């Protein structure tokens, strides 16, 4: 089976030759379906750039990227938008919810760019919010929600298209430790249900939820290891135990 995500010798530079800076320097990486990967590294190490490439938001200067076995290099902007819409769910550090829009409509938003009917959109958004246990907050705007709740709305939004992979960029970066634990428990549970998750973090504690840790420095992968078997962490997690 081909990997879900296959990056081959990708280099990304900014600026003009010869004064270019290397955001990614000959990076190769493969992620299989169902993996939970944490990418760690200091700021400027290239982890965000790598994430943007995985998320089809950026194109490499050199090298190739295969998503579900297909090269993305030749794809048009519209075709990449379609992949992002159907195959990728984004979770951001600062949540990125539409501020004056209800939780339900925030979650339903990606479906606007697909072919789903209005009723179907809202019912799918509703069931995603139920999944992150926010069914009592459907009509709340982000301002009325706590940080943890906002990030749960964002996760529901990432899930609403039933994507092949969730890309989470510092998902707990703006949260307190209790909310962070909640969010990580949700991600871990999603992974246990088979969802592929790739997450950026700079906290080792958060990274330890993942089964595979990739460390980056100066645009290169300097460490890539499966550190333990799947699901070992979930069993010891209090948040999910409470839930049953």
């Amino acid at each position, binding site marked *: 089976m081909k990997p879900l995500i296959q990056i081959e010798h990708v280099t990304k530079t900014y600026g003009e030759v010869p004064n270019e800076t290397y955001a990614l320097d000959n990076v190769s990486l493969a992620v299989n379906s169902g993996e939970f990967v944490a990418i760690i590294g200091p700021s400027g190490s290239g982890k965000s750039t790598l994430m943007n490439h995985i998320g089809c*938001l950026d194109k490499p200067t050199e090298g190739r990227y295969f998503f579900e076995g297909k090269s993305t290099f030749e794809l048009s902007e*519209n075709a990449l*938008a*379609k992949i992002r819409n*159907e195959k990728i769910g*984004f979770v951001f550090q600062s949540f*990125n919810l539409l501020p004056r*829009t209800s939780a339900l409509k925030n979650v339903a938003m990606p479906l606007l*760019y697909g072919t789903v009917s209005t009723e179907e959109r809202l019912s799918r958004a509703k069931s995603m919010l139920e999944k992150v246990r926010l069914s009592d907050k459907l009509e709340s705007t982000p301002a009325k929600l706590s940080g943890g709740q906002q990030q749960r709305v964002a996760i529901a939004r990432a899930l609403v*298209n039933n994507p092949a992979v969730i890309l989470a960029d510092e998902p707990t970066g703006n949260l307190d430790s209790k909310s962070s634990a909640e969010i990580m428990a949700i991600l871990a549970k999603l992974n246990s249900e088979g969802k592929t998750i790739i997450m950026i973090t700079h906290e080792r504690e958060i990274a330890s939820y993942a089964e595979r840790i990739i460390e980056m420095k100066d645009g290169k992968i300097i460490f890539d290891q499966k550190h333990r078997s799947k699901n070992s962490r979930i069993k010891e997690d209090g948040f999910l135990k409470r839930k049953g």
Partner: protein
Amino acid sequence: MDLQETLTAALEAIKINKLRSALTALGVIIGVAAIILLISISAGLQGYISEQFEKLGANSLFVIPGKLEGSFGGGPPRSVNKLTFNLIDKLERSPNPSIVDVFPIIELAVTASYRNESKVTTLDGLKENYFEDADLAAQKGRLFSAKENEIGKRVAVIGETLAKDLYGNNDPIGKNIQISKKSFTVVGVLEKQGRVGGVDADNVVFIPLNSARKLTGADQVNSFIVRTASTEVIPQAREHVEKILNRSLSEDDYTILSQEQLLSTILQILSVLTAALGGIAAISLIVGGVGISNIMLVSVTERTREIGLRKAVGARPRDILQQFLAEAVILSVFGGAAGVLLGFLGSVAISRFIQTAVPLWAVLLGIGFSSLVGIIFGVVPAIRAARLEPIEALRHE
């Protein structure tokens, strides 16, 4: 994103900034209202002028002596009057289906007096059937008869103004009236005509044509009216009259005016004026469009993160373009509709002083033009939004 979703999203974005949206639309509102108001005044004026001309008679040709250059001419014709009764007899003896009747008119400015009162007035010598044709009736007494015209009896029918000025509250019927040292008997007072073309139509004295002919001793008429069977046959009637007159006269001896001709010239001038004024009003609409453009650019900057997010989750550049264009167009169409309403109310208010009319095409023009402004001025901000790079946009603070 289909049209309905695009419009819903755009409406929601507009609702979020109610005051700002309203102020932005105000530019368009004022522009469209100004256009509607101007058109309504112009249309009202056209209607008024047309009505005034219709009072003069729509199915008629006016034949006057001499050559009038252009449609309006400059002053009275100077050549010798060659419109004689003999000519009119010729015309009457060669009937044409397009012509119903011919009314020769002797018209003079005279001083009419009764006892110590006197007044300068217009005397018209007319055939008795002119009254029926021109829809004139007596409010007191009677009109003169065919018999009285035939024998040239000294009877007079006077207008209301003249009756008041000469006879005060007394009944003028049966009283005498002195015209050019001849005494006439007042047999009737005409119904009030009001002002026609700015002239008091009630300061008149009508006497039988033959009486007027005796009074002046001349063989010419001042003009004659050719009444046509309908407006459509005016060209045939004109041709016929020209044919008859050209047997005895040269083309420079007379002028045939049709009411249609005069009206169309005046209305043409009026529409040029309207277009010019409308153009000035349209400039204010363009200023309104610039306002929309400006606010949309601000909005794109403010919502850079939103645009980045939408693109990240799968919005194509086209979707973003549509969304922002829809906002601009909705703003301008709302502005246009409100402007039409405001212009209409303004025109109703003004109609207490002058005649106004809001034609449907003006309403459609107002709304159509404002949506066009929305598209034109919304395109630049919308393209800017559509071209934003999602990564950059998401990083924007």
